[in-house]
């Protein structure tokens, strides 16, 4: 009977990659633990208690998820309060059931090998030298992995993570938590997310130490086969660890969001406006390369060439996480094509980036009555008198004075809807800045970016190079950069800005 109910719904392992799944719902390897997933509010909690109608709790030891199928995702959407219980590859049929029993898992002792070695020990004093992968030296692999783990922890801002998790846990254990379901949902979602991250790293650390133990054992017992196997596993971990380093760069709460990118020409007339449009083109091409969707939201053209300002919407995972590295002033040095005397000119363009928050509950609520909606660039009697394809609107949020315009949609209705979404993200960003939840430098709006805040220089004459003033990263081929090859700049900035902060570990 038990088996039947367990097998009621088997599901395929494919839809979500195992790794992303782990970070979503990392489940404990703790014996005697039943993993429970409670959605909307999305909570991952653990329990040593057994679910009442499963007769043999011991059958459920060491539950592990290895995939989430699309039909389960549908279930989650349709029955938001359903408890999903997994056993091996099976989804157990359960009904709405809430259980919270969160123990402070956070303050765990640092994991060690059987002879007391920790990851920190391995990295400290370069105990084991890191060689090329091809050197096939297990100590080198292990050291490289340990180093990655440290870097990942740093990038995840480990200390803050631990503190935050404690705070969240305290909140979660309050008996009146569910009096405010929206807040509760937010808290439990964040808890689930951070917990997932923490466990992923801890699990990875544990895995490394287990392999080290295994290797030592294999050597003691001259078990070649085991040694070879562990070597392979370590090499694989070493490669995964490198990928995880990159992933960890984008662990900010808004990083996974889509975003708006805005460019504004600096002083200097046509020359600067032309530069602004080159920069905008660079971002369009960058976004296209990344496979993001690009929509022009708003564009104010220069009188002769280029743009005064423009906004594009970049749709896709981690668009904000990457694009935020571009916030600031970009400087161009070249012989101006607009100067008949062929003199060298320096022009500036400012870039701002706004995340589009996916989670509706964290968005600022806008009151209709606080809005003033105007036809943009209107004139004349309008109505039947005029035939025009210009249907831009400007929305002013009266209490804050924040405005948004959209003119590139083909109907007024859609222009208004797009302007509203721009306004929404500006107000969200304002609110985030107020709560100081994100690093202040990314939350600057265009008007706040000071022209002194130069982040990168592009020189086309007398020599050719692009150099980031924050990281000193530079390349000698401006054309490729202007065609959207920005990854080097973005990555070096992201790692530099996070890794140099000693407080993060």
């Amino acid at each position: 009977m038990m088996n039947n109910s367990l097998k009621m719904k088997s599901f395929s392992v494919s839809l979500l990659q195992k790794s992303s799944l782990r970070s979503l719902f990392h489940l404990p390897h703790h014996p005697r633990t039943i993993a429970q997933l409670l959605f909307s509010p999305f909570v991952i909690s653990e329990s040593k208690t057994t679910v009442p109608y499963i007769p043999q709790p011991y059958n459920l030891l060491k539950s592990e998820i290895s995939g989430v199928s699309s039909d389960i995702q549908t279930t989650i959407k349709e029955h938001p309060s359903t408890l999903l219980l997994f056993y091996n590859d099976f989804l157990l049929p359960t009904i709405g059931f809430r259980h919270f029993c969160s123990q402070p898992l956070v303050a765990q002792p640092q994991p060690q090998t059987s002879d007391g070695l920790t990851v920190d020990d391995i990295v400290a004093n370069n105990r084991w030298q890191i060689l090329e992968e091809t050197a096939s030296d297990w100590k080198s692999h292990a050291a490289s992995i340990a180093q990655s783990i440290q870097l990942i922890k740093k990038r995840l801002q480990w200390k803050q993570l631990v503190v935050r998790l404690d705070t969240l846990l305290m909140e979660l254990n309050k008996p009146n938590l569910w009096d405010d379901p929206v807040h509760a949902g937010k808290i439990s979602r964040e808890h689930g997310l951070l917990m997932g991250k923490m466990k992923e790293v801890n699990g990875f650390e544990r895995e490394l130490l287990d392999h080290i133990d295994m290797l030592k054992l294999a050597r003691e017992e001259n078990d070649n086969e085991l040694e070879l196997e562990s070597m392979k596993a370590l090499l694989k971990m070493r490669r995964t660890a490198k990928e995880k380093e990159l992933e960890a760069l984008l662990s900010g709460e808004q990083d996974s969001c889509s975003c708006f990118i805005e460019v504004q020409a600096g002083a200097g007339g046509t020359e600067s406006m032309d530069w602004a449009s080159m920069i905008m083109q660079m971002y369009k091409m960058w976004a296209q390369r990344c496979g993001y969707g690009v929509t022009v939201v708003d564009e104010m053209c220069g009188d002769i060439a280029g743009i005064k300002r423009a906004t594009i919407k970049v749709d896709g995972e981690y668009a904000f996480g990457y694009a935020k590295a571009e916030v600031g002033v970009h400087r161009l040095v070249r012989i101006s094509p607009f100067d008949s005397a062929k003199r060298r000119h320096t022009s500036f363009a400012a870039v701002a980036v706004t995340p589009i928050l996916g989670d509706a509950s964290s968005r600022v609520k806008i009151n209709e009555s606080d809005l003033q909606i105007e036809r943009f660039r209107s004139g004349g009697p309008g109505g039947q008198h005029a035939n025009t394809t210009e249907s831009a609107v400007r929305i002013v949020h009266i209490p804050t004075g924040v405005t948004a315009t959209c003119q590139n949609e083909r109907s007024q209705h859609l222009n208004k809807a797009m302007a509203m979404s721009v306004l929404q993200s500006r107000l969200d960003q304002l609110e985030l800045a107020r709560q100081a939840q994100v690093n202040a430098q990314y939350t600057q709006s265009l008007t706040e970016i000071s022209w002194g805040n130069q982040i990168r220089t592009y020189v086309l004459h007398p020599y050719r190079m692009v150099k980031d003033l924050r990281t000193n990263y530079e390349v000698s081929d401006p054309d490729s950069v202007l065609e959207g090859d920005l990854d080097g700049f973005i990555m070096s900035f992201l790692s530099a800005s996070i890794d140099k902060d000693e407080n993060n570990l």
Partner: protein
Amino acid sequence: MILNFFPCLIRYSIFTPLPLFFKHQNLLPLSCSINFIKPISSSSSISAKTIQVPLFLKPPIYSTTILELKKFQNWAKSLSLSIGLKFLNLDNGPESNLLCRELNWLLEDVVEGEEDNPTGFLTLGCSENERLVRMRVEMEELYDLWKQRIEERRPFQYIVGCEHWRDLVLSVQEGVLIPRPETELIVDMVEELILKDKEMKQQGVWVDLGTGSGALAIGIGRLLGNEGRVIATDLSPIAASVAAFNVQRYNLQDVVEIRMGSWFEPLDEFKGKIVGLVSNPPYIPSGDIAGLQAEVVRHEPKLALDGGADGLDDLLNICKGAASFLKPGGFFIFETNGAKQSKYLVNFLNIQMEGSFQYVNSVSDFAGIHRFVTGFRK
């Protein structure tokens, strides 16, 4: 084919004031006055034949290289840039920025590209120049279309055969007024009303007088959903066919019915039963017509624009009809030429037609012009 319509037209002399009568002379034969109104079924073969399919719906059976398209783009762009502020200063026409934007949209409609970035290939480097792209018109015609836009001031919407209006893409062609952005707000107001008052949605029929491309009727039909019923009327056979085509495209043939005839004339059976009445009738004073922007005066139908000496002929007609056709509590909203007409109408509805209406108001558009008059039948 249009001729087939004529026998089933129109007994419009009763409602139609004289100037309007003359205005119609060249459009309609004056002989017929048959009281039989045939609803235009959208599946009828008649409508299909008079309709011009918008570019974006045509099959992509032509092809050209990216290089050729770039050449066209450059040519068309410099033609547009050469206009500068000329049209704007002349008659409030489009300036070159706007023309350039239209050019992009034309390319979007004509070229078969990727969905979220249809003209993205135009920014590709030279190495892609020889790549073929599929097109919905021939290259030669494309040049011709842009020449018409600039040299003849043919409205962009007639060139591409459609107008994006609210969240709709409506087919339009010569002979049918291109719906204006201001008019979108009528649907917003109706939406607000039926959200507040469910009865307005279920208890009775909605009517759009002078439906043109069907914009208002379709917008409202979509709000009402399957339980709703909208009757849209127009005097112009082309408008009626285009409206029917658009209704069909949005699969609303069971909700929106198009009838040909003058204002309330085809609606006899609904006297006292209409729960909501919308109209954007011709309201431009006859004397202003000649001075309108070239796109309008040279290309759009006079029948859709000319509202008689002070532009109020049709509006007053409709106001009077509203008193007998709306059911008690029924709602109306009319578009006007602006403050002067709105003020006049508010006054007219409150005083001349005393006792018929309540909560009569004028409402502004996004440019701050008193564009609409709204109210309820007592």
